[in-house]
């Protein structure tokens, strides 16, 4: 019971810290003011769902895929309700899950190899981070595209 309670608290803090970047980046993308609250809800939902799935020891790529696919369906519902294109909600909501840190680490590793010479240790860092970036990002976009790939298949959503 206690473990469940602790997990719930962690889950809530995760959701709380996830809505902030979702709204912040939505503002950089100039999402209309009325839609910001949906971006906040979507960001909190997607990131906390991924946290939960990873807590139950799903690998990060699959957790990301499931979270972003659910976000895709949620975005589908909102988009049909408000007649607003889907990327307006979905992209800002998955921004907190983007593997930015891995991407920069891989790039910095490449620069490092150039300056200080090849070493197996740095190359390992570059490959691991680069591949992780690639797979998480693909899972993310593929998950978001699931509704239009599987259900709509080329027909317009709104």
């Amino acid at each position, binding site marked *: 019971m206690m473990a469940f309670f602790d997990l719930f608290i962690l889950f809530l803090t995760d959701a709380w810290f*996830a809505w902030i970047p979702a709204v912040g980046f939505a503002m950089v993308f100039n999402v209309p003011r009325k839609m910001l609250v949906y971006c906040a809800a979507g960001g909190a939902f997607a990131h906390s769902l991924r946290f939960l799935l990873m807590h139950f020891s799903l690998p990060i790529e699959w957790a990301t895929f499931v979270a972003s696919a659910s976000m895709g369906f949620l975005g589908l519902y909102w988009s049909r309700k408000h007649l607003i294109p889907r990327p307006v909600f979905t*992209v800002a909501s998955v921004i907190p899950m983007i593997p930015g*840190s891995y991407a*920069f680490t891989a790039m*910095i590793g490449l620069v490092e190899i150039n300056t200080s010479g090849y070493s197996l240790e740095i190359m390992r*860092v570059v490959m691991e981070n680069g591949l992780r970036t690639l797979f998480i990002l693909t899972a993310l*976009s593929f998950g978001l595209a699931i509704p239009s790939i599987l259900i709509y298949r080329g027909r317009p959503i*709104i």
Partner: protein
Amino acid sequence: MILSKEQQTEITRIAVFAGQILHQHGAESRLIEQTTQRLGIALGAESIELAITPDAIVITSLVEGHCVTTTRRCGDRGINMQMVCEVQRICVMLEKQLIDIKEVKKRLHRLKPYKYNRWLVVLMIGFSCASFSHFFGGDRAVYWTTFIASSCAMVIRQELGHRQHNPFVNFALTAFVATTITCLASVFEIGENPKIAMAASVLLLVPGFPLINAVSDMLKGYVNMGIARWVFSTLLAVSVSIGIVAAIELTGVSGWAL
């Protein structure tokens, strides 16, 4: 409905203008193609064919065997979802016959990109990167270091963007400033693990939207657009990492996560 040559030209112009707006403000290729086609067909064309390239669109309208083709350059105007929403709304209203062709033209030309108050954006981006530092396991001192560094970085990014500087220069300089601030925090040993602030404070420079658009374009069959977007965002990430490395070399703080 029989359309004269002039009317067909007019329809083509309106459709290509809508496509151009969508392209310039960062819509994905499927959305550009569908919206332009729906608009043209709702205005009376038999079909609209569209070729989308990374910096221009070519469109041909077909009416009773006559073709009208036109090309527009599409310079990048920055991602603006509000413009995409407005164009989509005009398209839906036209399809439901709530507005006519004159009204469509008037509304499309009246569209102005809405921008949030820049200081509000700076504040929110500061808190966003600070939240990322929390996700990486930073304590409260690291949280506020990240907040300050990424807010300053965002101010610089907006200033340079406002003066139409090259995006690569912009991102490299911004990353340099953010990393210099967090490196200084690392020198003075603020917080338990100042390295976390270094990683989190540059996350405002992740080209997330182009990356997601790139993969979804490729998935939906627009491989050339996808590759162009992917290369663009990779180059942005490279220039960010050059800015970070320059700042690390300057302050002499050893090591990113390496």
